[in-house]
């Protein structure tokens, strides 16, 4: 350091600064270490309550591998790929159920989006003045978002009977909460000037929403809704488990009754469907819509 061409402070001045730096560093490291230890303790506790331990996993490796091995074989022991016709013996029935799954998510998503569209204005600071109304709308959306759609489906199956109706309503409710939050964040982040202009020139609040808010958020609304549709296709695929319609019912039956090749066939079809929807939707979004969050 002494023969460095750089100018440095004299030691007397430098020492306290170095000490302060070391102390700040030590405090930061201590805080990080404390968080890390708390985290490890939490992880160990979790491993304990979930009965997850590597030894058990290692002992059970045979069963696990066996199961996946079964999935790849037909009833007669041949590889599934050797006889696709036998593997996909129920192609027509499964395709129909997949169609039902997609229609369920389409209807559920749009219905939920319609509810969210109304709720988002009620929850926004720049549209609704009454803080109590706003808080009520936000809490309602929070609860709808928190309760998983499968739980709604369980309850709706009791009320609306078995079938896709219960599933659609469950999807719609959960969607209205999830989209409502994203929608109202869009509304809160608009440029207020067009709205001021309309209100100042005597327009009503509905005019302001139609001509000032809507043009700014419409692209974002569409983008979020399309994203939610993709998510809902996946969610709808399991609703059948509780009897709320879609392919999940057949999948459950196959898993319960150990029809191994059926399980893998349905899973493959499901994967292809989800892939196809994801690819076409991301194409549609890239072509027609800007990224969510950007306003026009």
């Amino acid at each position, binding site marked *: 350091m002494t023969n460095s061409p750089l100018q440095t402070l004299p030691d007397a001045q430098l020492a306290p600064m170095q000490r302060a730096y070391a102390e700040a560093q030590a405090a930061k490291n201590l805080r990080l270490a404390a968080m890390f230890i708390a985290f490890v303790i939490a992880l160990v506790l979790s491993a304990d309550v*979930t009965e997850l331990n590597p030894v058990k996993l290692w002992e059970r490796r045979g069963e696990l591998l066996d199961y996946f091995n079964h999935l790849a074989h037909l009833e007669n022991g041949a590889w599934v790929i050797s006889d696709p016709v036998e593997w996909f013996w129920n192609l027509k029935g499964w395709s129909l159920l997949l169609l039902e799954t997609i229609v369920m998510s389409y209807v559920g998503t749009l219905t939920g989006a319609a509810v969210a569209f109304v709720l988002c204005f009620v929850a926004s600071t720049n549209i609704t003045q009454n803080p109590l109304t706003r808080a009520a709308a936000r809490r309602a959306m*929070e609860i709808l978002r928190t309760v998983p759609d*499968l739980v709604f489906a369980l309850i*709706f199956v009791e*009320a609306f009977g078995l079938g896709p*109706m219960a599933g659609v*309503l469950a999807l719609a409710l959960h969607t209205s909460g999830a989209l409502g939050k994203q929608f109202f964040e869009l509304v809160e982040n608009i440029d207020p000037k067009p709205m001021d202009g309309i209100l100042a020139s005597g327009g009503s609040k509905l005019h302001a929403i139609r001509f000032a808010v809507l043009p700014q958020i419409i692209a974002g609304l569409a983008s979020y809704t399309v994203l939610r549709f993709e998510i809902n296709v996946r969610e709808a695929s399991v609703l059948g488990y509780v009897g709320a319609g879609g392919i999940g019912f057949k999948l459950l039956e196959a898993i319960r009754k150990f029809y191994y090749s059926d399980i893998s066939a349905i899973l493959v079809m499901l994967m292809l469907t989800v892939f196809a929807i994801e690819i076409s939707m991301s194409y549609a979004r890239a072509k027609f819509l800007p990224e969510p969050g950007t306003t026009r």
Partner: protein
Amino acid sequence: MKLRRPELFPNLAKIQAEHSVMFRAQTQERYRHIAIAAAMLVALLLGYGFLGFTPLRFINGLVRFGAILARMMPPSPGSWEHFWLYMDALAQTLGLALIGVFGSALIALPLALLAARNVTGSQILHIILRRLFDMIRTIDRFIWALIFVRAVGLGPFAGALALLVSNIGTLGKVFSETIEATDQKPVEGVLSSGGTGTTALRFGIIPQAIPVITGQLLYYFESDTRSATIIGIVGAGGIGLTLYEEIRTLEWTHVAFLLIMIVITVALIDILSAYLRRTLARG
């Protein structure tokens, strides 16, 4: 006094005639939007029909749902014994979520590094691993739970495995995207001053990726708490099994109590993770 609307364009007809193309384009676009909206609406109505919605069924269902809501009041666990049982199940749910996210992060992070093009420079690894992540991701975690329950038996062990595996798909994809989105300049800086590939990774990429990844982990912890509440329905541990049994036996006051417990827990985790994110952002 009568206010008169000012004539903004007294020569509107002339303007329209001169710039007919502009005016026509507007109407055309408007018609296209209306057509798309109408098509979507028709599809929606057809969808309702296809799924067997009828007004009568809907109203009947609503009435029954109203009755269920009425029977949910007042929410109560029934007895203290039940309450502690619920708390136990809730603790298991949280454990599942924690193990599911952070345990799988330990596996997903190395895989994500291998899948990131700016780390390995390998297009083949990138494609193979990304496809693997996608395949795991397309299968809902609920289905993973079903499969693991069959493979290793009932209990939280199956649930933990299901969340671990399905999160590898989600986290692997998100992490590798984050790593690929890092700025290349610090890496060039390290390399040009004589650093090796490993030091470039350690001092060029990791410091940029870690804060983002931490935020993502906290976000997925929240969303996994929600998933962990439902995988119990198939017997894979957590509060879902309790909830399922109470709904099956139509103990609606217990159901309402459980739902309130879940909502409060998720809200608390929301607050905690927002706090942690702020703390970590400050360093």
